[in-house]
């Protein structure tokens, strides 16, 4: 009985994660602009991998393996959004169409308002 419950949870989470990953890959190819594509890729990197790893946690043979997988989730949730943020930042800083916004944000920073930090 318990085995079956574990199997169902594992399968459900893995299926959800794979669905989100496929959707994110579709989004990467569907969108044209770098920021949109990065958004789709970041979704897959966080939520899709989260669901897949949670599914693996349910199927783990002992509790320590599950704990290690949770640590991997924590690592990925810190690292991968930061990576997406850096890509977006590079795009905004180098693409000429954002130049007005970037200079406006710089000006607000120079005037002391650090909340609009870029």
């Amino acid at each position: 009985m318990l085995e079956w419950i574990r199997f169902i949870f594992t399968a459900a989470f893995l299926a959800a994660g794979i669905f989100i990953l496929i959707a994110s890959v579709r989004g990467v190819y569907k969108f044209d602009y770098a920021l949109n594509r990065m958004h789709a890729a970041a979704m897959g990197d966080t939520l899709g991998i989260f669901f897949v790893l949670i599914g693996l946690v349910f199927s783990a043979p002992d509790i320590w393996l599950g704990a290690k997988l949770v640590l991997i989730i924590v690592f990925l949730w810190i690292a991968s959004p930061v990576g997406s943020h850096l890509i977006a930042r590079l795009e905004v800083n180098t693409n000429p169409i954002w130049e007005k916004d970037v200079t406006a944000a710089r000006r607000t920073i120079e005037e002391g308002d650090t909340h609009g930090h870029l």
Partner: protein
Amino acid sequence: MSKRNSNWGNTLQGRFLRWMRFGWEPMDVLLIDKMSQDRDESVNDALSAAENLRDLQLSEKYNADTAIEHSIMQELDEWSLSKGRKIVNRLYALLSVTLCVTVILLLLETVIAMPMRGVAVSPTNNEVSQRYIEEGMEETGAVNIVAGMILDYRAFDTLGESTVLFIAACAVLILLRIDRDKDGRPTQELIAAEEDDRSHEPKSDRILQGSAMILTPVVLLFGIYVVLNGHLSPGGGFSGGAIIGAGLILYLNAFGFAKASRFFSYKTFALITLLSLSFYALAKAYSFYCGANGLPSGIPLGTPGSILSSGLILPLNICVGMVVACTMYIFYAMFRKGGI
């Protein structure tokens, strides 16, 4: 330059060389020299006029030739832009497909000719692998058979691999490092490179800095764990060194070169890699000299499974890990800015 005889052209060697180059007889050279000395001014003028005329004719001929060449080239250009491009594209596609199909067929042929997997008589199941699996733990003291393989049975090969990494780092240093000038002042190129790097560097990015504050110690610790646990679990010097190098690169990205150069400079790189490689070479030389063929080497193997076991494998793993980490960091720094 060494000193050369001022009359070098008339020495035996010089004449011989000229004869070799132009097919002149050495006697001719002497004769011509003598004639040119004997010639008086009027003859010289007439000669130079004749030479001028010949030059003019030659240059006219040359111009005509180049005009013909030019027109041919233009025709070729037009042809290659219209009809030739189609032909070349089709030929390119055909050739690439042919090449791919040939390679695929060759590889498939090789795969078919290889012995079946899992058959008892196939050469992969010979006595060597059986011996490694059965007696490897006893002989090397390492629970991880792969570590015992690459750092004990085939340690010489691994020394070559680490040396290749070191040489690659040195070559990248030679090619990409932007030096200061003789007086130690930064050159224009260095200033330009630093300016360019500063405009692209994610400077004072609080999100990156905050996550790097959390992640860098964890990454470095995990890398050290992988290196130190190389003889007990999957991992070892190469993978652990790569993890440590990635942690260093993350720190560099978050906090910049000024802070990273406090603990990692050219001196650090040279010291660490040199010490690691020489220790590796010395330790393995001792081990080959004294420990081969079952001779007692005096290095205790310890109980398999404990952290201080398996003789030389643990220090060798540390050496390899340090070399790999330094190489990764140097590669990144060189390709990014051309300096540390």
